[in-house]
């Protein structure tokens, strides 16, 4: 305990000294996130300094091993770091699919050479990664993917198309699920491969969404040659050949926990419907919202949201106690994303016609409306709500197959 208290004191002092004042202001939204990568343009000197200082300590990825660019912190220490950052409202120095997805996959399934080669540039924010999973004909049925990867001796030859590749147009590398064995049962012919986006034959095209924004792309692979080794001893394939589905499943579980957690508002930090309604709809002389039906709906949602947050807390504590989360991540994904959609519907109800403005300063270019539309993807991406319910029914409740 004494060690942890010492760590807290040192961390607090270091953060006070090193976190630039501009990095202690709440993020306005996704536009303030530092994503890093070769083509990254820092929005401010403060953002650059903050990333460099945190990366030098390994604190962009606090729990990764030091030899791979991480901070080597224990779970308890990482929690303290998080608390101390929250205390001074410090922004996250770096976010990326490398940190969220590829890193955990490499740590679990990668060879030492792959970790040593790919992880440090992720930790320093030098290489930005994107994810190539879904295909136009492989959505919920992801394992039916067809993107073809053939063994051509000294290299792999990749042909096919991926869709919903987030930020592919701004990324340097992509981790892709490809079919390496067309004869095997569908789950057993898939491999997890790493491809440089600058390779000849890779093209991307942004997809415009109902929110008017384009965070997702289509990515095409036309006769893309991928070296068997990206550097001596650094295989392009992560894990065993044809066992990429194991890696994919591991990452999907991880992703579900993450999307579910985002849905609670714990990460977004968005205003609550109750606050928005009190401001925009007004309260009566007893302090109650002037619209009693909206008030009831908001209060019921607040109860569900709060109980959901507690459930996340409990599952994390259970996981720490060695019970693991397993298929319960599907519960977080399902409930968290459905809840987030409901929360934004209530925000839109509370905002009324103000919330419908799409352009102009007053609405910050339709910030609420665009966020509301963005939430509609929550229950589709990373496995639809219906897929999550299937998983709960089969894996947890052990109900029979149809």
């Amino acid at each position: 305990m004494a060690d942890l208290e010492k760590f807290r004191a040192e961390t607090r002092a270091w953060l006070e000294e090193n976190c630039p004042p501009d990095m202690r202001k709440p993020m306005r939204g996704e536009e303030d996130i530092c994503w890093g990568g070769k083509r990254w343009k820092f929005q401010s000197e403060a953002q650059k300094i903050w990333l460099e200082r945190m990366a030098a300590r390994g604190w962009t990825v606090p729990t990764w091993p030091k030899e791979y660019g991480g901070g080597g912190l224990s779970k308890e220490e990482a929690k303290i770091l998080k608390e101390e950052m929250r205390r001074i409202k410090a922004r996250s120095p770096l976010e990326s699919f490398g940190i969220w997805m590829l890193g955990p996959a490499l740590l679990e399934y990668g060879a030492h050479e792959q970790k040593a080669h790919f992880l440090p540039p992720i930790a320093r924010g030098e290489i930005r990664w994107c994810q190539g999973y879904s295909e136009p004909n492989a959505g919920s049925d992801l394992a039916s993917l067809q993107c073809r990867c053939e063994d051509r001796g000294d290299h792999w030859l990749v042909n096919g198309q991926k869709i919903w590749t987030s930020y592919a147009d701004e990324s340097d590398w992509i981790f892709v699920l490809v079919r390496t064995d067309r004869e095997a049962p569908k789950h057993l012919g898939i491999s997890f491969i790493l491809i440089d986006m600058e390779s000849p034959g890779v093209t991307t095209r942004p997809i415009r969404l109902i929110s008017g924004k384009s965070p997702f792309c289509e990515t095409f692979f036309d006769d893309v040659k991928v070296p068997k080794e990206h550097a001596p001893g650094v295989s392009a394939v992560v894990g065993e050949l044809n066992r990429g589905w194991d890696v994919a499943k591991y990452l999907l579980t991880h992703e579900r926990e993450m999307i579910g957690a985002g849905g609670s508002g714990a990460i977004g930090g968005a205003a609550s419907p109750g606050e928005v309604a009190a401001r925009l709809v007004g309260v009566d002389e007893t302090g109650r919202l002037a619209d009693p039906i909206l008030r009831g709906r908001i209060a019921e949602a607040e109860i569900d949201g709060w109980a959901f947050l507690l459930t996340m807390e409990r599952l994390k504590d259970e996981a720490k106690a060695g019970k693991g989360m397993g298929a319960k991540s599907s519960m977080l994904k399902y409930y968290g994303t459905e809840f987030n959609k409901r929360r934004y519907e209530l925000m839109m109800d509370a905002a009324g016609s103000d919330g419908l403005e799409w352009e102009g300063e007053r609405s910050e270019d339709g910030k609420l409306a665009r966020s509301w539309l963005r939430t509609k993807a929550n229950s589709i991406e990373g496995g639809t709500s219906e897929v999550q319910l299937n998983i709960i029914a089969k894996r947890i409740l052990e109900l029979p197959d149809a």
Partner: protein
Amino acid sequence: MPLVLTEEQEMLRDAARGFLEAKAPVSALRKLRDARDEVGFSRDLWKEMAEMGWAGVLVEEAFGGSDFGFAGAGVLAEEMGRTLTASPFLSTSILAATALKKYACEAHRQEYLPKIAAGDLVMALAVDEKNKHAPAKTALRAEKSGNAFRLSGEKTFVADGHVADKLIVAARTAGAPGEEAGITLFLVDAQAKGVARERTIMVDSRNAARVRFDGVEATGDDVVGEIDGGWRALEGVLNAGRAGLAAEMSGSAQRAFEMTVGYLKERTQFGRPIGAFQALQHRAAHLYCELELARSAALKALQVLDESFEAAGAFCSLAKAKAGAVARLASQEAIQMHGGIGMTDEHDIGLYMKRIRVAQEMFGDPAFHADRIARLRGY
């Protein structure tokens, strides 16, 4: 504090489950009902529970209790919820024990807490006066005359009030109904002159009472908490009861769900188990998530009661609201998914629906607590 049961609490749960499944299964409740038992629970069984430390779950060891705390009491309530066990656990071991332990004078604590722990004293909380829970609207008058008070008015939905030896009565000593100030809690002998009790057999085959007070005498010595300032004590006691009921409902709902999932696997129609149909799978999976939320909320409320009792109000409302709504959904889905057999008295599932209905109404239904949370959150 991690939001999980401690090892000790897990052991308590396992022991309780074994004991209740053997000694107080659902068939025991059925037997009490069919025999029109006048007490409504087994006094012998209650004595056995007391010997295991359950009756004194909140009572300090110095008074003969086991002092497992609210989280421990929640474990027991949840297990009794699973088996629909009839006992004065809520009325006596949670509500009365909380009132005495937290708010009573030393003399009362010494007199009553050991008897509660020993299972020799049944007590009941008399708070509601109308069909919906609204403690601030307490109207039962306690008129001061000299050194004494005279209580006049009516109480309803007093759980175990028909057999209680002592009643804790919320009365108005000042102010007007609707005001939180001016309420006082009195400890009244159930046999006192002017007390008239009518046993009300409820839909869940458990018992409550309507109690009339006709100039019942009490003195300043009978007050629990402060005169005119009893609201704080009443809220504290109610919060404990709400968290206990949330745990109980969580247990009942969980058990009803297990029975339902079991039935989905075993019942065959159209040549396959009905659990293979996605229409039912998705509803069951959704309900599973809701049950997990209810359990988290109940555990959190009980832990906060142990750690910072005075700050537990919002958490107890959260737990009561969520567990009430989820248990109701669970009981409805249970009957629907059981189909025709679920409508029969012979099947146990209906007993779960009945008990859940009563528990979710007691001390505030989900709407009452949603309103309370909204007020606490400033809208």
